[in-house]
């Protein structure tokens, strides 16, 4: 089975966001970058599928040189091959999907995370699938493959959905699917000297422009009360009369 896992490098979740001088992106000074947490589930699933069906796992990321770091993590976890598609600007999501589709053209299955925690687009999997003219299933929390038949259990609003599709396909995965392994120290050391293949980005024109980035303004009322009976009664009144929320 030819398995391609798409991984992205994102700021650590505890990052304090400040806006860069251009007013359009976050300032990367002092920001710690990590492997997108959901992509750990994607890598783990790829490795488990290889253990069951044989074949190879390729990890692919679209990003700048610093993204090699997450490819090293993927190598330490056990992928066979790591590919960096060089794109310092990290275009828009269409540009990313276009590059990923090229990289996954020969794949039997492309596995992505359910969302990358920087821009939270939730759309790369479906977009990549459409570019490859393949079926897809998103937010997969259970997966079974029998021959070319794929059955995926997906999280939807208010429940779960079972989707039947067939290989080749694209899936995005969710917590609950597996328990990602921790790379062992010797494997981390070995990964440092493994090759990373570099490819040029297809460089498609961006389809969405960022005009500006701002920090959310707090327009909260911010009334803090005590816990006496009168305070509780006052909260009820405020919710009812001031906020008209009940």
């Amino acid at each position, binding site marked *: 089975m030819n398995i391609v896992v798409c991984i992205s490098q994102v700021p650590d979740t505890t990052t304090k966001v400040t806006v860069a001088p251009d007013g359009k992106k976050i300032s990367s000074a002092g920001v710690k970058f990590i492997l997108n947490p959901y992509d750990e589930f994607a890598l783990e699933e790829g490795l488990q599928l290889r253990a069951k069906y044989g074949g190879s796992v390729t990890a692919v990321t679209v990003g700048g040189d610093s993204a090699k770091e997450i490819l090293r993590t993927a190598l330490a976890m056990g992928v066979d091959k790591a590919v960096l598609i060089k794109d310092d600007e990290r275009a*828009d999501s269409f540009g990313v999907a276009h590059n990923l589709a090229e990289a996954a053209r020969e794949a039997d299955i492309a596995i992505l995370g359910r969302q990358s925690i920087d821009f939270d687009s*939730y759309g790369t999997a479906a977009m990549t699938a459409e570019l490859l003219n393949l079926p897809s299933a998103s937010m997969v929390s259970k997966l079974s493959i029998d021959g070319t038949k794929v059955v995926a259990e997906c999280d*939807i609003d*208010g*429940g779960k959905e*079972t989707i039947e599709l067939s290989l080749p396909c694209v899936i995005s995965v969710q*917590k609950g699917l597996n328990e990602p392994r921790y790379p062992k120290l010797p494997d981390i050391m070995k990964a440092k000297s493994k090759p990373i293949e570099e490819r040029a980005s297809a460089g498609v024109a961006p389809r969405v422009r960022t*005009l500006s980035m701002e920090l959310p303004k707090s327009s909260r009322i911010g009334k803090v009360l005590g816990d006496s009976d009168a305070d509780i009664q006052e909260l009820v009144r405020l919710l009812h009369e001031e906020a008209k929320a009940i």
Partner: protein
Amino acid sequence: MSTILVYLESQGNGLKRSSLEAITAAVDTGYTVIGLLADGKEENVQAAAEYGLTKCLLAKHPLLAEKSSPVAASAIAQAARYSQANYVMASANSNGKEIAPRVAVKLQAGYIPDAISLESSAGSIIAKRPAYAGKAIVSVQISTQVGVITLRPNVFTAKKRSASLTVEEFSPEITTEDIRARVTGVSKNEGRLDVSEADIIVSGGRGLKAAENYNLIESLAQVLGGAVGSSRAVVDAGWRPHSEQIGQTGKTVSPSLYFACGISGAIQHLAGMSTSKIIVAINKDKDAPIFKVADYGIVGDILEVLPKLTEALRRTLNK
């Protein structure tokens, strides 16, 4: 004339609330708005007239009954071309998130997911959307001729305004090859209102001390007709199911009223609920970060405050 095609979804004999919100958001831009319903009958569309929709395409094809996102995407893209739409809009619910990126690829369109505001400016639309788990807001604009935008549920309030609606049948071309992925089963979290569909959410955190104390959260939710939510700490502790978890690794919600009870307000929790309209925090630590995003706060012990608050609300609401 600039046109927006809005993808509508049925619920029972009417439309989903998120679809009515999408109609409102689209009409508010001043564009001509055309609806597209692919999963229902003409009766389902009628309610949309009350929200200002003047025209709706009713897609008819036997294969639309197959619940398949490539099929829906194909029907939407065809309707967009047919109506010469400049924008296609849909709700950013689980269905919309799956279909919209495909529509964008088919139409060679720029795609903006999860918009929280729209503004029309010089013949195009500028959308705001959260990034970095709501820690930043970006203003974005589509640079292609056609654009696809999904709208975060519960952020745009559906507004009534009258219009007279004409419904036109539309027959997309769909072949069995388009199906490729089909939904074969759905299990809803029966009996309980899901956080992603609730207008009021009462969430509990580790401050509750024990799983048994969740009955305090449930009673308050019941009085308000709301859903029960949870922080990750209580889900990880096994007190509550993951389907209730709110935050970066759980669900993103924007109810009109959100109660955070015994929740510290970690950034990953805020990521899932900071666009709620009114936030109430109850915490015994006056310095807890949750108070920084709260509209109303009570500094106190939840185990004592919750029963009193529930009772006071019961009295007020039964009046």
